[in-house]
Every structure is written in C-alpha cells, then in structure tokens.
C-alpha cells in the first residue's frame, strides 16, 4: 500500500532552511528509505516564496497569484511516497524522518482506483 508522507517544516530561519536538522540527516534518511526497498518517489520543494497558485473559475478565466502563504507556522517542504504493508509501518517511517523533529509529517494513504 502506498502512503504519501507530507513533510511540514516548521517556520524557516533567515537562511530559508528549517532549523533543527542537518542536510546529513536528510541524506541518511533518504538512503535508508531507498535501501529498504519502499521508495516510490519523493522530492524536496524549493522555498515557499517561489510558489505560485493558479485557479480557473467557472467561466474559464485563469487567475494567477503569488503564494500560497502559510496560515500556520508550518510550510510544506517536500514529500515521500513509500510502499509499505500498513499504516503502522508508514507511521514508523514518518517518525524516523528528520522533518518530524522540527515540524510534522502528515501521512496519507494513496487512493487505489
């Protein structure tokens, strides 16, 4: 079963990096996920200030805006999709992710159609 781990980083510091964990932590975790044979996909996102939103209304008119701006202290920093047997296994991997230490990981099953 595939699960999406949404990595919500706590507010970034001046350097634009989430505080608390080092790039080495992320590299180690990435290696673990790939070596465990559960990695489906995953990306780290560029800084939130580079995000742009697009919306198309009923008339087909396109609106492009800067943002979104986080309403909470946490911002979406990246994601993993992993393939593990059940929710407990997915929660274990989420707990090991460095992002769970200075932010939170939302775990969502990928719908199977």
């Amino acid at each position: 079963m595939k699960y999406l781990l949404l990595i919500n980083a706590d507010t970034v510091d001046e350097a634009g990096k989430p505080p608390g964990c080092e790039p080495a932590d992320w590299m180690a975790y990435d290696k673990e996920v790939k070596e465990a044979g559960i990695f489906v996909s995953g990306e780290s996102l560029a800084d939130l200030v580079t995000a742009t939103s697009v919306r198309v209304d009923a008339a087909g008119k396109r609106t492009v805006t800067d943002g979104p701006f986080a309403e909470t202290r946490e911002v979406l920093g990246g994601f993993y999709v992993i393939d593990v047997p059940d929710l407990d296994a997915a929660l274990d991997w989420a707990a090991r992710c460095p992002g769970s230490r200075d932010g939170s990981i939302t775990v969502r099953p990928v719908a199977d159609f």
Partner: protein
Amino acid sequence: MESVEAVFREEHGRLLAALVRRYGDLDLAEEVTSEAIEAALRHWPAEGVPPKPGAWLMTTARRKAVDRLRRDQVLAARLAVLQVEADRAGPVPAPEFGAELPDERLQLFFTCAHPALAAEDRIALTLRCLGGLTTPEVARAFLVPTETMAKRITRAKKKIREARIPFRVPGADELPDRLPVVLQAIYSIFTEGYAAQRPDLAEEAIRLTRILHRLLPSEREIPGLLALMLLVHARREARDGGLLLLAEQDRARWDRAMIDEGRDLVVVALTGGPPGPYGVQAAIAALHDEAPDFAQTDWPQIVALYDVLLALTPSPVVALNRAAAVAMRDGPQAGLDLLDSLAGEPLLRGHHPYLAARADLLDRLGRPGEARQAYEAALGQAGTEPERALLRRRLDTL
C-alpha cells in the same frame, strides 16, 4: 434466557475479533457476527444452548461470511488479496472447534484504540466492537443522536480499512506507547458511566479491563486501572444515585468484596517496579476505602501518593486534588494557600471543582461571605444537574 444474554455478551467481542483476524474486514466481520447471533436467537430458545456456544456461533458466522463473499465479487477480490498477504505473513491459525477458541480480542483492543483515530471514536469503537453494544446504545451512552454516532463509527471503520490500520498487537518496544491509549479508552467509558449515571457502562469498562488483564497479565497498569475502577465503583450505592461527597457517604453501603478485590489488585499494580499513574490513583482510592470514616483517612499517605502522581503526570487538576489532601493534613489555610498559588492555571479558570474546593476551605476558615461568593461562582460553571444540586446543598449549610 438470561444465560443466552450472558453468552452473547461474552462471545460477541471474541467472535468479532476472530473473524476480523480471519477476513481482515471489520464491516464483514460485524455483519456476520450479528447474523450468527440472530440465528442463535432463533434456534437456541427452541433447541437449547449448544454445549459449545462459541464454536456454534463461529461455524455459523463463517458460513454466513462464505455466502456473502460468494455473492459479493468486490469483497471476494479483496479477500483474495488479503489471503495472499496473509500467506506471506505466515499461516493464520484456523479456529479450533471443541478446544477453546483462540482469543484475538487483544488485537481488536489495539485496533479500536489506535492513536490514528479520534479519541471519541476510539471509545465508541471499543464499546461497539468489544463491548458488543449496538450503535443506538453507544449513541445513548454519549448523549448524541444515533445518526451522529453511526456516522462516527462508519468514519472510524473507513479509516481502519482505507488507511489500513493493522489488526495486530504492538511489539514489546511499542507497548508502553500504545497501551495507555487502550486504557484511556476504557477509563473514558467508565467515567462516562459515572457522569451519565449509567452503572452498566461502568460495569462494561470493568468487564473489558478484566479481559485485557487476562490477555496481558504482566502489564501492571492494567490491574492498576482495574483496581481504580473497582475501588470507585464500590461506593456507587452510597452515592445515592447522585453526587455525595466522600465525607457524606454512609460507608456501610460500600461494597466490601469489591474493595477487597481492588486492594489486592493495587498490590499487584505497585509491586516489582516503578508505579504507573493508574496504580497510584488506585492506591489513593484504596486509602479512602480503607478508612473507617472521613476524618480518620490516612491523609499524610494520600499527600505522598499525590506527590508521586504529580511527578508522573503533572497537571493542575492533580495539583488541585493534592491541595485538598494537604488541607486535610495541615489545615484549611495550608490548602487555601496552595489553591491560590494555582489561580493562574488556564485549565482551572472556570473549573467548578476548583471553585468549590476553594469555597469549602473558605467556609472552614470561618469566612462565609467569601465562601458564598465562591460557591455561587462554581454553581455558574457546573455542568450537570447533580453537580449543581451538590453545590446548592453546600450553599444552604453555610
């Protein structure tokens, strides 16, 4: 037909758990469990209760499940997938007939109380799946419309199915994190039983804890919780169906057998390692139950136990209870000083037991005007009618 009722009560959770384990589908297991019980209700009154009612119910439920799976292609496809996974995970033990059925209820306890479910859904599911209460009964227990409760139970089952919350007992390394959630779900059933004056719910919580204790005999917080509930439930008759303070209760009406059982369990809960919060709360309840009257309660020991509890689970409510015990040990002024030092706690703002405790101490210090004010403030915050009746009674004695 009382014996039939007793059989259903005992067998419902066990049967459901075994079927969930076998088919990996809570909905299917629930449906065939009720169908098997309906079939028993038709046959047993005429033919008598079979010698092995559990095995009879299991055979019937499995037949119903097979029929249903044949009819339902979607379920059948899902079953095929589950079967492949089960084979990979190792053989599923087939239920033995004649011999005692394997007990899978432990897995169901941990599934129903999984921390990925909303706290109120855990309690509802535990009552529904392990207590065997119907959805309208669960709804009544929590004073919500049946439709609301049905939606909540459906949502929780959907999450178990679609997020794939596994039916399993956590490993020894995870148990310390997961067991408190199971115990909290059961304790909430018990406290709800008290708040709603539903002794049947309190008894159900005690029954479920007994099962849990049999299944996990070495986890000492389970006898701790069981002891706590027995020691509190033992006083139910003396509460006169309402709220009577410990000091006002007729101790002759306390259930001595239940107190003795609770005291023995406290010893189990506190022996052989650092105590857990339920064990300590049970020890406090035991000291209350052992005292011949309120004045002769062992207050120094109770204060010492609250110190332990405060270290284990620091909370303003525990500090409030500790202050009340200090007032009994060292006099009302000492208690009042402690209460006033807690005045800034956001959790205690508008907390009517805090206001009532303050009122009581002011009364004992001979400050009736301030006591009256505090009681009136408490009355304005109190939630239930029995609570308000108690406070009005206290006001009248000023």
